[in-house]
């Protein structure tokens, strides 16, 4: 466990020193800050706009950070050949993969916290301190980001960088559209199309489950039960992603 932690810490330290992910975070903060520009709206509408834009920015830019950090975590080690020295130390390959996942999760967490703190500061400035619904939304966004990171990391154990980045973005987009896709396909009579849609719906994580911001922004209630169920769903998918990552990395020649 200690070695996983050390590898994770080193991954996190790399992201801090290399500063590449800061650019994405700065973009996120600019977009969140820009949501305040809608001052021509009524106070209530402006607040809705700030929340809507901020949740979207935290989720979208967080997803970018999750994908790029995970992409760099394993493939960069292989590309730069730093992995040769690392794997000849007394660590297991599983320590390496799970350590990298810890590191990526730390990167996602810190960037998420910074963007969230800025958003909450903005709400407080607008004299509308965040309620529990805001925290529920943020909690689900965080677990979605961790899941995106885990899936990209898993793909990185057996694909090239280019394929991984295409797949990760594809899954991110499709994962937000699966529910709509399924509804549309249910209307078709074609068995093949139906079968393919069902397979896609089962295999691709439904990221839209983590999206409760549309309901929260308009004041609808989302139960803790739903939040808990969705987090469990995310953790289950994450475990599958990590299992895949471990399986492929154990067999991978470097």
């Amino acid at each position, binding site marked *: 466990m200690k070695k996983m932690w050390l590898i994770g810490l080193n991954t996190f330290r790399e992201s801090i020193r290399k500063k590449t992910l800061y650019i994405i975070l700065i973009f996120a903060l600019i977009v969140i800050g820009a949501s305040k520009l809608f001052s021509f709206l009524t106070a209530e509408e402006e607040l809705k706009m700030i929340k809507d834009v901020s949740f979207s920015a935290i989720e979208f830019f967080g997803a970018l950070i999750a994908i790029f950090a995970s992409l760099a975590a394993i493939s960069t080690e292989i590309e730069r*050949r730093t992995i040769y020295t690392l*794997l000849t*130390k007394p660590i297991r390959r599983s320590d390496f993969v799970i350590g990298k996942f810890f590191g990526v999760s730390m990167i996602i967490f810190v960037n998420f916290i910074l963007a969230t703190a800025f958003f909450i500061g903005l709400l407080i400035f607008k004299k509308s301190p965040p309620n529990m619904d805001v925290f529920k939304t943020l909690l689900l966004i965080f677990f979605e980001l961790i899941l995106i990171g885990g899936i990209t990391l898993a793909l990185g154990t057996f694909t090239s960088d280019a394929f991984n980045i295409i797949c990760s973005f594809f899954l991110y987009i499709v994962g937000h559209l699966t529910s709509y896709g399924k509804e549309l396909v249910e209307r078709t009579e074609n068995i093949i199309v139906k079968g393919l849609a069902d397979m896609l719906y089962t295999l691709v994580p439904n990221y839209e489950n983590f999206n409760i911001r549309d309901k929260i922004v308009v004041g609808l209630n989302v139960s803790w039960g739903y939040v808990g169920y969705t987090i469990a769903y995310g953790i289950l998918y994450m475990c599958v992603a990590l299992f895949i990552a471990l399986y492929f990395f154990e067999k991978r020649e*470097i």
Partner: protein
Amino acid sequence: MAIIETKQLTKHYILGKKKVVVGLENVDLEINQGEIFGILGPNGSGKTTCLKLLLGILFPTSGEANIMGKPPYDIEMKQHVGFLPENPYYYDYLNGPELLRFYASLYSMDSDKADKRIEELLELVELKDAKRLALRHYSKGMLERIGLAASLINDPEILILDEPTTGLDPIGCRDTRNLLLRLKEQGKTILLSSHFLSEVERVCDRIAIFHRGHLLATGTLDGLNKQYQAENLEDLFVKTICAFDTEFAAKTGERK
């Protein structure tokens, strides 16, 4: 007593559906405790493949590799092994002491012991003045020296070095050579690969010559020179390789 051993070690790289490249073919090696053993061979002869198989970076197609009687993936065995890869690349955002501290932590070394060892090693590889310099600003020779320090962080019983003098200037080469001889005096076992014949000639107790993934000859330099009626290592090297190539061409010709 053999501390490093390979039995019929074979590695075939599969490129596409039909093309198979021989990385290593039925290699039997025995490296004794306390000796410096050199693997020689032209580029692509299988030297690095052999080291990677021993360290568990690659998996054999058949045969086996053991260090201290343990398979390459054994964690306890790795505690006693140090490795310097060819053209070493390290985390370039770290400085020398940070890199060594990170590796020391992977060997579960306690903080005080690690700090003391880091000081010793930086002194040994003459990088004490570059303590604060990030590795991305290091020259090739400095990277090679910090790599050597990193491979010694755990005070290993077995040191595996892949082309340890590549990128070093003549003084750096001499210092590395002297260091290897000192480590031998301390009872360490050293396995190194190189294509610098003069370096190998000066430090190695025994050598092995690889070509096209095959082990052509193994033994002491004097013994091999007598066996192949060679005048020196260069002569031996050329003779064994040319003989193999002639035989290889004849065989492939027969097949055609």
